[in-house]
């Protein structure tokens, strides 16, 4: 006990020094830290959304809707393709994840097969069984589609948030068809949600006439006009779609009303040019998310690939729509299935409350330890304070996130961290009672208590580890802080106090321990 090897001393001091350096930036006020020279470590603990304020949104990608829509399109396209090729058919229907059709003449299977190849979209397969043709998703096709759709959605969400500039979102895929969007510091969450939720699917369709009269032919659909709610009958097939847009900006028309100017890529420009030159004098509908924004009459062929969308816009709404069009449409609808939003005020209050609880808990334990164990209590307290500093330092170094439950974990760790010292010191007392000399009693205390300390810590770590693995969000923060705190307490409570105790024993050479 008297002899504490130099290399051990060196390790202890180095760890404490490194840990403290890592923790310092997190303990300094933001402004002071920013004013520090560039060599100064700047890595601080990341505050969770519950502490700094922000929105946590869990979205589900509406795959069912996307698949249903794709199948519907395939159904329409199949009908059109077979009619165009004059192939007789019956029983054209959607069954599960497939479209099936039976040909009247088994001899035309080959021709039909060729024709229907153009109907296929991503992930779909075309199979023939006798005179029945099946278009549909296989397991792998569906997985592939899911994968792509989620990736595209993430990309669109990122662009939509980035368009506003200042926010630093975290957007990650979760599970098969979910996306977590975390946006720290966002003030208007409702606005953010409505921006992210908008499908922004823009399409152009030819108008057939008034809607709501008679049966709707299979190639047509009735859509409401946004302002009047009046139905117009338009062709299902889109002339051009938003995916061919390369730019969209808010501007003003000659009358000074806000409009959106847009530009197509070469494919879009050609399609739009063809359609408008063939249909001069007819109306076409500009459709956004199944609502008609406007349905102007085509005066001339529009060949330049750019155009104007006018509608009942305000400058604001035109600007928002332009932004959405630039960022692109969501491939599938998104639904918020979990939301946790915290205002910056509440976050700041939580930090203050957490700090206060930390300080008071620490003060209580420091006083109790000194009353209970005198000078050794002071050693344990020094170790305890280092435990806190090192925990903070490691959290910062790992880039871990500190949440409110994380602060709770740090406070809780205060009590659990001194447990090792309590175990040792109680053991030392017993050894003294059993008649051992001061120094051997100390030595026995550390040695005998070690096994117990390790065992008792491991059980705590097991439950904490499971919390970490299965917990979500703030609870993970609790687990991380507790894991780090309890692990570090093994080092601080054993090594750091041992170093101090051995120095003290060497200096004083006591006959009796003040314990």
């Amino acid at each position, binding site marked *: 006990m008297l002899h504490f090897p130099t290399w051990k001393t060196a390790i202890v001091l180095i760890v404490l020094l490194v840990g403290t350096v890592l923790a310092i930036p997190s303990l300094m006020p933001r402004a002071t830290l920013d004013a520090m020279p560039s060599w100064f470590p700047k890595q601080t603990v990341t505050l969770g959304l519950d502490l700094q304020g922000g929105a946590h949104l869990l979205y*589900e990608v509406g795959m069912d809707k996307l698949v249903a829509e794709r199948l519907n399109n395939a159904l329409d396209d199949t009908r059109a393709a077979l009619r165009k090729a004059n192939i007789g058919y019956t029983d054209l229907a959607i069954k599960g994840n497939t479209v099936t059709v039976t040909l009247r003449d088994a001899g035309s299977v080959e021709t039909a097969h060729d024709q229907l190849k153009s109907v296929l979209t991503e992930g779909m397969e075309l199979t023939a069984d006798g005179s029945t043709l099946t278009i549909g998703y296989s397991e792998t096709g569906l997985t592939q589609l899911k994968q792509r759709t989620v990736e595209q959605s993430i990309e669109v969400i990122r662009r939509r948030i980035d368009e506003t500039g200042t926010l630093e979102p975290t957007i990650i895929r979760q599970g098969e068809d979910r996306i977590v969007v975390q946006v720290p510091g966002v003030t208007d*969450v*409702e606005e953010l949600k409505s921006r992210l*939720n908008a499908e922004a699917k823009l399409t152009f369709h030819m108008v057939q006439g008034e809607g709501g009269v008679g049966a709707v032919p299979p190639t047509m659909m009735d859509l409401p006009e946004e302002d009047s709610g009046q139905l117009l009958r338009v062709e299902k097939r889109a002339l051009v779609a938003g995916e061919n847009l390369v730019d969209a900006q808010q501007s003003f028309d000659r009358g000074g009303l806000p409009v959106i100017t847009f530009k197509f890529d070469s494919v879009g420009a050609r399609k739009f040019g063809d359609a408008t030159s063939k249909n001069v004098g007819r109306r076409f509908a500009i459709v956004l998310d199944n609502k008609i924004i406007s349905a102007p009459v085509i005066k001339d062929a529009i060949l330049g690939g750019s155009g104007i969308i006018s509608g009942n816009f305000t400058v604001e709404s035109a600007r928002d729509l332009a932004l959405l069009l630039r960022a692109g449409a969501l491939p599938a609808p998104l*639904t*918020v*299935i*979990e*939301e*946790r939003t*915290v*205002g910056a*005020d*509440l976050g700041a*209050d*939580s930090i203050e*409350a957490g700090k*206060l*609880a930390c300080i008071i*808990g*620490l003060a*209580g*334990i420091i006083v*109790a*330890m000194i009353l*209970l164990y005198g*000078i050794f209590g002071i050693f344990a307290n020094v170790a305890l304070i280092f435990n806190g500093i090192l925990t903070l330092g490691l959290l910062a170094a790992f880039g871990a996130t500190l949440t*409110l*439950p994380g*602060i*709770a974990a740090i*406070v*809780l760790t*205060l*009590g*659990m961290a*001194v*447990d090792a010292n*309590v*175990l040792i010191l*109680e053991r030392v*007392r*017993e050894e003294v009672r059993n008649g051992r000399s001061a120094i051997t009693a100390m030595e026995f205390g550390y040695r005998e208590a070690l096994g117990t300390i390790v*065992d*008792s810590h*491991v*059980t*705590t*770590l*097991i*439950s904490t580890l*499971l*919390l970490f693995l*299965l*917990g*979500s969000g*703030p*609870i993970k923060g*609790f687990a991380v802080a507790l894991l780090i705190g309890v692990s570090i307490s093994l080092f601080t409570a054993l090594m750091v106090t041992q170093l101090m105790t051995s120095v003290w024993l060497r200096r004083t050479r006591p006959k009796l321990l*003040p314990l």
Partner: protein
Amino acid sequence: MWKPIHLVPPNTRIDFMRWHRFTFALAVIMTLASVGLLFVKGLNFGIDFAGGILMEVRAPQQPDLADLRGRLGGLGFGEVALQTFGDPNTVLIRLPQQEGGEGAQQTAIAKVRAQLGSGWDYRRTETVGPKVGSELVKNAVIAVTLAMAGIFVYVWIRYAWQFGMNALLAMIHDVVTTIGLFSLFGLQFDLATVAAVLTVAGYSVNDKVVVFDRIRFEMRRYKTMPMSDVVNLSVNETLSRTTVTAGLTFISVLALYLFGGAVLHGFALALMWGIFIGTYSSICIAAAGLLNLRHSRIRGDGEGAKEAGKGATRGA
């Protein structure tokens, strides 16, 4: 230097095991009562598990809760629960899960905001849809079960299966009564509570391991001593540590309860109860459960024999 306090006087010899029949009976009654409460009264599930909407809003001046209840109740969202939270100006609004799928929750939030009007500060908004809620329940149950199983296996390997079994039974007692407490007082049961329950499980076993360690040690040292004496001796020897650690942890959790803010109240409360019950169950359930253990169950050779030798010289 002052004389440090000895919380538990040296050579304390309380005959804990005398009451073991009573404490066992009490443990069984409390566990069954807790389970009964769960069936009869159930738990006040927070939105994490029940789904629904929670909004923490702050008004510029003290809001009229009755008026607010009337206005929000009129929106037709079902039962609207209101309570002041932390300070008189802050109100916690809780709406049940809305019918009509995941999107309906968002519509409801918008309607509440519209009804409240301007001037309110939206401190916190949480919605949990039906799918997520049921997954969170599943994960919580898995976490608690795996943690208990993991701890059981660890204690089994490190000691003997009787130790593992006793630790497990005591842990179940602690966890079930903690949950029972939440049912009894109708406290909100959410994800943070599950974290607290798992922490209680960890703490509980942490405490038992210290007592077990000593029992194993004394069993090797006094190979012929009756088990009740071994357990009593061990419990008394570790009593000082047990109370000190429980006390210190309690101090830190109490600080959390009093100053950590309203959000952490339930969490801190569960831990306070857990520290108390975990300490109690170490002595009166886990240790007492070893009364029928035979010395031969503990490997006496090797390491044990050495320790026994040391013990003999020390015993003088």
